């Protein structure tokens, strides 16, 4: 493992809950690891599995999706759709040799700034322990291909 290895996490946060929770963590000056790069989407239901694959293909060490709690979706049930895709995608990623810890879906409401901190810190800690992503070499071109399609 490189000496100063810092995992890079691409985070898709929904506009109404988790993005706001991250804003709240900011206004409350809660400190957490600087490893996430947040991409705002209107709803966790907008997260296309291709986004996740693209992120891994382009070198992300982890992908985090943040949505509203079940029953709290701003768009009624987009987060359930996200959950269904999450399970499906998780299985695919496992087959590709990507460890479970690298892909997470978390429900974080707009009031849970503290949860953003704990989730990010926890994920960073786990990814640091895992080290840089190694992938089934046979799969890598395939992943590229899926992402590119």
């Amino acid at each position, binding site marked *: 493992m490189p000496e100063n290895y810092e995992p890079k996490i691409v985070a898709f946060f929904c506009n109404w809950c988790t993005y706001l929770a991250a804003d709240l963590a*900011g206004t409350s000056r809660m400190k957490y690891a600087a490893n996430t790069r947040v991409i705002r989407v*209107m*709803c966790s239901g907008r997260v296309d599995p291709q986004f996740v694959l693209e992120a891994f293909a382009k070198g992300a060490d982890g992908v985090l999706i943040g949505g509203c709690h079940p029953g709290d979706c701003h768009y009624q049930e987009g987060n359930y759709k996200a959950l269904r895709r999450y399970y499906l995608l998780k299985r695919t990623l496992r087959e590709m040799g990507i460890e479970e810890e690298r892909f997470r879906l978390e429900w974080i409401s707009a009031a849970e700034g503290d949860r953003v901190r704990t989730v990010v810190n926890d994920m960073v800690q786990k990814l640091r322990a895992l080290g840089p992503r190694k992938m089934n070499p046979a799969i890598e071109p395939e992943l590229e291909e899926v992402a590119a399609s």
Partner: protein
Amino acid sequence: MSERNGIVRIGVYVCHCGTNIAAIVDCKAVAEYAGGLYHVTVSRDYKYLCSDPGQELIRQDIRDHKLNRIVVASCSPHLHEHTFRTAAEGAGLNAFYVHMVNIREHNSWVHENREAATKKAQDMVRAAVRRVVFHQSLEKVRVPVHPDVLVVGGGIAGIHAALTLANAGKKVYLVERQPTIGGHMAMFDKTFPTLDCAACILTPKMSSVKAHPNITLWAHSDVTKVEGYVGNYKVEVARRPRYINEDLCSGCLECIEACVYKEPKFIDEFNMGLGKRKPIYIPFPQAVPQMPLIDIDTCIQFKSGKCKKTCVQACGDRHAIDFSQKEEIRNIEVGTIIMATGFKAFDARRTPYYGYGTYPNVYTSLEVERLVNASGPTAGDVVLRDGRKPKTVGIIHCVGSRDEGTNRWCSRVCCMYSLKLAHLLKEHTDAEIFNFYIDIRTPGKGFEEFYQRLLSEGVHFIRGRVAEVTDWALDPTEENKLVLRVEDTLLGTVRRIPVDMVVLSVGIEPHEDAQDVRRLFNFGCGSEGFFLERHPKLAPVSTFTDGIFVAGCCQGPKDIPDTVAQAGAAAAEALALIDTGFVEQEPNTAYVIEDECSGCKTCVPMCPYSAVYFNADTKRAGIHQVLCKGCGTCVAACPSGSIKQHLFEDDQIFEEIEGVLTYA
């Protein structure tokens, strides 16, 4: 890409936000870095971009350098996206060519390592630069706002909001769960710190609600369904039966007098169980609507069907009593909603060490409000449950507040109402009164003066949280008393204080069904259950759902003046929307590229708003632009990639993903 979008000229602006950002993120380095990125024409860092000169700087650059894309790295887009879009428009650029990067809330305020934070800011700016290349000119969507307003909750907050709106000429529906409006305030005797009689200031407002031509009052009713969005809400209200025909009842109350129960016999909810009522009753004399209702659990006619129905006889030819009344459903359309559902008083049984429910002479503060009230169950005579008059009273502050075991927050009003009750009890009984407090908090107008007044009235103030209320006696002076054991923290010693009466100053907490209610209306809630405001400072009565506003204690503990101020503010926010006549919506709707659609219909069930449809003629999907709310779920679901979303195009997001990960 240049072919599709012409020659792209990007301006990147990195804000210092004073030292808010600059202290952690090296803004100059970020701007310099951005300057080297492809397509970037101008790159600057600036002290306060949201200031007038800051905005002018951007406008000038657009004009001078023919910029056609703007990236602003500053605070959250929820705060200033509107500002910078407007600035760009001022220089003739379409607002949707602007993109914001959040390097304050998501970066400088949450990170400590300058190097890592700067690196992160650079990554995010790079992603944004790549993203805006794919931005397109979009038209804002305008939807009309229905001028009617729904106010949920008829306490002082709901009453004030409804009257304000009605006086401005708007039609208001006021829905209240209880049989009367008035809320908790109607139960209070006096109000702090001025000691005005609560009823004297509240009941005229209650009557105005009933009399106002613009207000439709539905008490004893529940909101059961809410659909739609800002400007166009469709609401279903269930009106529970009172078994009294509202149109026929004249409010003479002779039916109550005539009830077969000669004496009131059943627990009176309004008087906190300290008084009794009949099966047909009116909660309190000034109740609005001024008409009785029948409690089917205690009414003989409902229980056995064999009552002499003396109430019906008394009503005579008005025929207002209707035992067969059923729940009625009303459907209304409104443009805006004000939530004023109030609070629940903390249940003192959850602090068993204070003996509420075990020792009869332990009271909650709300019970004492009724006990000292001239229109209360004892006509203002303070008599204990065992018939004695108290000679010593202990008032325990912070019951169910500031406590990890119950509620963590300060309930904000307990200090002041405890002082008020101390004053009133002293006035009514001349008893010796002990206040037990952790901290005295009097940060309102006239509050500290009131505290001083109580000090001079000879009320004891003991700084310490009472550990227990028991009836065990160490010596004869403690026999037949309730004994409070407490550390007098200012003396630094433990004291035992025997009293005749204990008052528990219970805190404020959200209603048990607060989570269900806000789910019904689809807006946010804090983890403790209070409704969540859009911004704690700058949007205190807005919610994250456009067109829904909050007022009063449902948003957090507060006193009457603050509640009324919030109710006024919520009404003003609603008025601003109504009088504008329309709302501008983000043009982030989804759309179908028909040529690419395979007609698989995967997308149709995805949409919770039925905006996605299948055109049987063309065998292609289509999307009603007016109905689409822009969640993008159908976009992610489309197997052929033929559904796109404005502002969140696949291209844009892919560029962002690549942008944050590519090391340039």
